[in-house]
């Protein structure tokens, strides 16, 4: 067959809603430009209010668009043409994309409100809101685009924005390293995206997803099976990078070096959601052979990340591992073909994970204030303000953060009447439907228990018991008494996000999610209630996890526990980095070293040639210098001798000139006369 058969997609006129959606997309671009270039020339509060109100406007517009959309409407316009090649870019508005738009803008609004207070006195503030705006606009681009090529551009922009925000406090060495790590792991995965894009364009002739869907479903273009599988493999690989799946997920725990609101946004709405979103959009490209890879990777990632969280003391890293684990569930759902379950979990996870990050961030904010205040009293506490070993007792001092945390916690571990329960049940049910996936199902169920365990442990150490920082540093006792609730700008997002984790927010039936009303057009949720035993099993496993954690946590040795080799291995990310080191970095260095030697040999050859040329030049120079120039100089010397001998006769005297002239004249006359005769 002849590849490169470019299909010219039909251009479709834009609906009024498309222009509204474009406005939503361009508003943060505008904020980015304004805030980035005005920089420090406008005050912190102005900057914060501008960015936040723009996001609020975006949220309202998104709601409007979501409520107005009935059937999917597509607009497609010409992007650029090169010769016979006409590239188009399209925008699709369906209940899927617009509800995602609402989720992203809602989370972004909460994060913005929160950041106004949280980031107020932090370093480098003038760059924070522009970067957030860039992040959000890129994410909205991914959501709305219909062309895979456009999606790729926004995909890379998301990568850039995450790099800038993870390394936001780039003066800290760890933050800069984490940003670099995230960027490189993502780029390694993005290479797969580029190749997939090239293959799709070569074999299908278009990157418009709507067209591709019809082309594939009508099988009007026959593509070799190998190519179809390669496209699926590459697409899946690229999403593994962005959505932090095994083995690419190691960048995500390190990314906790960024500010907490950024972590909330990155985990809930923008970065890791992008991979799942693209997979859901490209679901028709995933061939059957690829499905089990997704299920297994999701199961392995979910389990491994959950195990890592068990012995983690960094309050944000625990949440990071739980995100990795939850994204693993979404991968499993996509693998089983139940993309709506994946999307459902993505939506619920976005809210409760943002809530978790923001409530933990509120505690960290307080811890940070304690550190700063004691620094003002000339006591420098060299402590990690993220360490849960130093927290405790915040239940009484910061009840709003505590209750928000508890609500989101309940949603995450899957307690009935909370959203997380419903979405997790759907995924587990769809796994259970396929008997070949019994082992991944077992792993997923185990992960439910482990999730309950580590989250309860975090809850216990962070909010219950005594304030251990004060116990360790008696100088903090005074500060401990002063701990109070945070500013309302921090608390309002917490309250709102805690409310969204209640199950009636998505479904009126507490045990069954067949009717997800905020998605409007209900997505076909398969297997919402396959068996009554599944919820019972998962609830009991959750309860076992919670009780186990409750009994173990009080006995846990916080500082000098015995370090088994297994936990060392777990804490080193299962040696993924070491494997990367051995498989990629060391061989490339070896190749580089070999090439250096080769280069040196080539250099020697080149140098020898150069030496030869120089030698030849020296010989030519000698010939030139001594032979040719010598002859010339000899002639000149001769002429000079003759000239000076004549000149010495005259001595500059006028009279001797005249006499010489006369003598010569006389001689000439004499000669002339002699000639005459």
């Amino acid at each position, binding site marked *: 067959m002849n590849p490169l058969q470019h299909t010219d997609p039909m251009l479709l006129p834009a609906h009024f809603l498309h222009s509204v959606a474009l406005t939503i997309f361009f508003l943060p671009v505008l904020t980015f430009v304004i805030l980035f270039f005005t920089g420090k020339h406008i005050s912190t509060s102005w900057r914060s209010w501008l960015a936040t109100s723009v996001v609020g406007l975006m949220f309202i517009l998104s709601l409007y668009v979501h409520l107005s959309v009935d059937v999917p409407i597509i607009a497609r316009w010409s992007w650029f043409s090169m010769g016979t090649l006409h590239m188009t870019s399209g925008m699709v508005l369906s209940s899927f994309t617009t509800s995602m738009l609402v989720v992203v803008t809602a989370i972004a609004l909460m994060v913005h409100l929160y950041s106004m207070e949280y980031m107020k006195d932090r370093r480098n503030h003038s760059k924070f809101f522009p970067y957030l705006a860039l992040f959000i606009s890129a994410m909205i681009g991914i959501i709305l685009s219909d062309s895979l090529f456009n999606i790729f551009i926004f995909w890379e922009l998301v990568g850039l924005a995450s790099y800038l925000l993870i390394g936001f406090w780039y003066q800290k060495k760890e933050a800069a390293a984490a940003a670099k790590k995230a960027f490189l792991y993502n780029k390694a995965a993005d290479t797969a995206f580029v190749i997939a894009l090239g293959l799709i364009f070569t074999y299908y002739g278009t990157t418009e997803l709507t067209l591709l869907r019809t082309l594939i479903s009508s099988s009007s273009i026959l593509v070799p099976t190998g190519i179809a599988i390669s496209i699926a493999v590459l697409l899946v690989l690229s999403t593994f990078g962005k959505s932090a799946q095994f083995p690419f997920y190691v960048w995500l725990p390190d990314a906790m070096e960024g500010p907490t609101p950024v972590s909330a946004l990155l985990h809930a709405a923008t970065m890791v959601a992008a991979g799942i979103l693209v997979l859901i959009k490209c679901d028709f490209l995933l061939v059957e052979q690829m499905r089990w890879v997704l299920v297994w990777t999701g199961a392995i990632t979910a389990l491994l990340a959950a195990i890592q969280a068990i012995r983690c003391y960094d309050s944000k890293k625990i949440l990071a591992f739980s995100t990795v684990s939850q994204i693993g569930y979404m991968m499993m759902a996509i693998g089983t073909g139940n993309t709506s379950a994946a999307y459902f979990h993505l939506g619920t996870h976005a809210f409760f994970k943002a809530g978790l990050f923001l409530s933990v961030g509120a505690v960290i904010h307080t811890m940070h204030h304690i550190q700063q205040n004691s620094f003002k009293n000339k006591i420098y506490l060299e402590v990690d303000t993220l360490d849960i070993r130093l927290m405790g007792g915040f239940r009484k001092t910061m009840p709003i953060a505590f209750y928000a945390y508890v609500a989101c916690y309940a949603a995450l571990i899957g307690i009935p009447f909370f959203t997380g329960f419903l979405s997790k049940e759907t995924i587990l049910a769809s796994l259970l439907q396929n008997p070949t996936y019994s082992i991944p199902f077992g792993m997923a169920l185990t992960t439910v228990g482990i999730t309950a365990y580590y989250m309860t442990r975090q809850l216990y150490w962070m909010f219950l018991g005594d304030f251990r920082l004060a116990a360790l540093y008696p100088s903090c006792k005074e500060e401990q008494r002063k701990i109070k609730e945070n500013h309302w700008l921090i608390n309002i997002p917490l309250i709102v996000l805690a409310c969204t984790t209640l199950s009636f927010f998505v479904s009126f039936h507490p045990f069954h999610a067949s009717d997800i009303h905020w998605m409007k057009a209900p997505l076909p949720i398969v297997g919402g209630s396959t068996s009554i035993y599944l919820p019972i099993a998962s609830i009991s496993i959750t309860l076992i996890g919670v009780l186990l954690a409750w009994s173990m946590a009080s006995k846990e040795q916080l500082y000098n526990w015995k370090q088994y080799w297994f936990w060392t291995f777990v804490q080193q990310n299962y040696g993924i980095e070491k494997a990367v080191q051995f498989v990629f970095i060391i061989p490339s260095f070896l190749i580089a070293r070999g090439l250096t030697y080769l280069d040196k040999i080539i250099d020697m050859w080149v140098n020898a040639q150069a030496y030869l040329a120089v030698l030849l030049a020296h010989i030519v120079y000698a010939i030139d210098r001594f032979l040719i120039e010598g002859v010339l100089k000899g002639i000149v010397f001769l002429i000079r001798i003759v000239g000076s001998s004549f000149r010495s006769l005259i001595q500059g*005297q006028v*009279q001797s000139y005249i*006499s010489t002239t*006369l003598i010569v004249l006389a001689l000439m006359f004499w000669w002339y006369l002699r000639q005459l005769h």
Partner: protein
Amino acid sequence: MIPITLYFIVGAVLFAIGTTIVLVRRNVLFVLMGIELILNAASINFVGASQGDYIKLSGQMMTLLIIVIAACEAVVALAIIMVLFKKAGSVDLMELKKLKEF
């Protein structure tokens, strides 16, 4: 009619005297006078050579021309000598060796 040879003899004598003065005397003023003598020798030769040429009188005309040129030349030469004296402080030709190259 004076024979033409006499003219030429007088001219030659004058030329010889002028040349000798030019070559021997060391004062520039005398050298200038010698040059005048040489010019006069030439004029006498012209006058002598145009003997019998009553219509055109080309010899006499040339002589007039030479006198005028001599006057001009004397003026220029005297000016040069004055400047020379101002600059070099001498009119002795043995001391004026500026034309020598090295």
